[in-house]
């Protein structure tokens, strides 16, 4: 399918308070096109809490429950359970949360909801930072990246949230990237048809947070995939499968592009290259990614 084949109906209306051309709005727009009208969104504190526009207005055409930062998955459990008891069928209950609300403060509620087999889709929009509060580190921030709380570059590697979620043995897990909207659309469509907990994580480069210019968003996203820094996969019935460029990397049909190409595009990694090249840290990043792919190969 092509972008022009996506449904025409819009659920994110003009008048939102996001940065012009914000990649996250594009992601949400695509996701809601796939989900359709019969959808209830649960949104914790983060970027999307801000861009809905303010009371008593809204720029979204589905009902939304805003909830505290760490509480989204639990609140969605309640929504899902309430709908079930009241006999309201075929409504997608969807959490739309940031990486902070997912990897960090909301991980307990998420784990609980997954373990309880809650019928919902949890979508983590991963911009690898707390952007709402002005670009601080999260558990998803990669090694060596600058944020306002990792001024010399983050000293730790990001967690593998996908693996944590898969360890709950839920029916469906997928990763996506803003640069491949058709892929994202297909994955949401698939999740919609499955009962039980579904988890989708979307990598979304954030120009102000990653320090690159707005017109490069799609390119930065693509390079994340092509360098292997961000894998595209699905997990169904206990099995992982890779798709798109990631499939080719996994099968050894193409070589990953050097990670430097991706790092160099982003000001947040500047201290790896200036004032002089930091061989040691670049090597550690390269090794980290290589190990990740070896691990994937052993699982598939």
């Amino acid at each position, binding site marked *: 399918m092509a972008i022009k084949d996506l449904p025409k109906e819009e659920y994110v209306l003009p008048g939102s308070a996001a940065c012009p051309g914000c990649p996250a709005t594009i992601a949400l727009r695509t996701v809601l096109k796939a989900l359709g009208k019969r959808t209830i969104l649960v949104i914790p504190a983060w970027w999307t809490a*801000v861009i809905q526009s303010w009371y008593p207005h809204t720029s979204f055409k589905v009902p939304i429950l*805003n909830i505290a930062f760490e509480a989204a998955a639990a609140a969605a459990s309640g929504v899902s359970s309430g709908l079930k008891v009241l006999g309201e069928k075929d409504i997608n209950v969807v959490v739309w949360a940031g990486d902070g609300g997912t990897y960090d403060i909301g991980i307990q509620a998420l784990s609980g909801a997954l373990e*309880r087999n809650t019928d919902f889709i949890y979508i983590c929009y991963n911009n690898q930072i707390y952007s709402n509060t002005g670009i601080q580190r999260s558990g998803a921030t990669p090694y060596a990246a600058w944020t306002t709380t990792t001024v010399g570059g983050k000293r730790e590697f990001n967690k593998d949230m996908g693996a944590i979620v898969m360890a709950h043995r839920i029916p469906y897990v997928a990763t996506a990237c803003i640069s491949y909207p058709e892929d994202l659309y297909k994955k949401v469509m698939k999740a919609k048809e499955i009962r039980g907990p579904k988890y989708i994580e979307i990598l979304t480069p954030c120009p102000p947070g990653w320090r690159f210019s707005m017109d490069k968003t799609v390119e930065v996203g693509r390079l994340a995939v092509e360098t292997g820094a961000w894998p595209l996969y699905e997990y169904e019935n206990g099995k992982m499968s890779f798709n798109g460029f990631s499939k080719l990397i996994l099968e050894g049909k193409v070589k990953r592009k050097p990670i430097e190409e991706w790092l160099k595009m982003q000001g947040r990694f500047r201290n790896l290259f200036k004032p002089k090249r930091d061989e040691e840290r670049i090597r550690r990043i390269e090794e980290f990614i290589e190990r990740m792919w070896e691990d994937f190969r052993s699982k598939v």
Partner: protein
Amino acid sequence: MRIVVDTGNHIAAKAVQMARVDVVAAYPITPQTTIVERIAEYVEKGEFHGDYICVESEHSAMSACIGASAVGARTFTATSSHGLLLMHEMLHWAALARLPIVMANVNRAIGPGWNIWSDQNDSISQRDTGWIQFYCSSNQEIFDTIIQAFKLGEHEKVQLPVMVNYDGFILSHTSLPVKIPEQEEIDEFLPKRKIKWKLDINNPITHGNIIMPNDYPKIRRAMQEAHENAHGIIKEISREWEERFGIYHGELLELYKCDDVDYVLLSMGALGAESKVAVDEMRKKGRKIGLARVRVLRPFPKKEVIELARHSDLIVIDRNISVGMEGALFTEIKASLYGEVDAKVYGYIAGLGGKDVTFKDISKMCERVMDGKYGGYMIFDVEG
């Protein structure tokens, strides 16, 4: 109507079942645990029509209640002490979202050190969250108040969550006889929840997004008005319950022998029940003292307290302490009287962390006041 002899917690579970609750989300903590265990048994036996979400924490319990209530479900949770404290953020959220969730809170002290016994510091710490707060003094009152709480919270002029508090172990684990009406009678008293707002795919609203300083005071004022409305509606509901079932626990206050007295004793919860015995004993000795048991802390029965103070001086016993100040009830009563009436108010704190308070202790405290030997505000019998 039949009589059941059971513990406060099992009676609470019975009330939840008979209120036809749609969603329960709860997490176990002593001394609340036997409520959730009993509800789980109902679910297992097919005797509970709703869904029971076994959440992984109290924070999630309240969050799940918010989600369920926001789609129109009648929703309940139960907790105690540290569980209630963990919920704190979501208590504010539920009240500001104007969701009529009902909770049983089994009053228990706060650690460290770990103390599982009765103490009201857990719920006192939640006074400012916007929840309506009841304090019960018998298992009958627990049953009746939980059913009434749904009617009150769901009332179109109220739309607020309601916390039904009662003492850990003293009531939660003590079997007492309770009159239980028939299901049809409960259904008549408490019809299905009428919804003021909900998440509806056919009428998509956004709830809880950014609100600017110009609008925010309006939602606070609306909550304050809802509490003022609740004040009158609590009275109506208490009287309706009496008419239907012949049981009456008082309204915001339960007045006991308060006519023509020099002193009125005020306290809450099981201490209120013990105070009745103390009042009887003191009256036998010719003391002119009555009891006003405070059933409702929010909305605070300001008018009623002022009325009492027009004719008598007040003695207040708190099972809680706002450290650095005094007991909560003591503070609030004095604040209510300021500029209205010039009565004397004497206070004590007693029974913290489950320390036993007998009717003799209560009489002793009151007699000190009445004999002019009040030694100043203090925590009673600390060394005893």
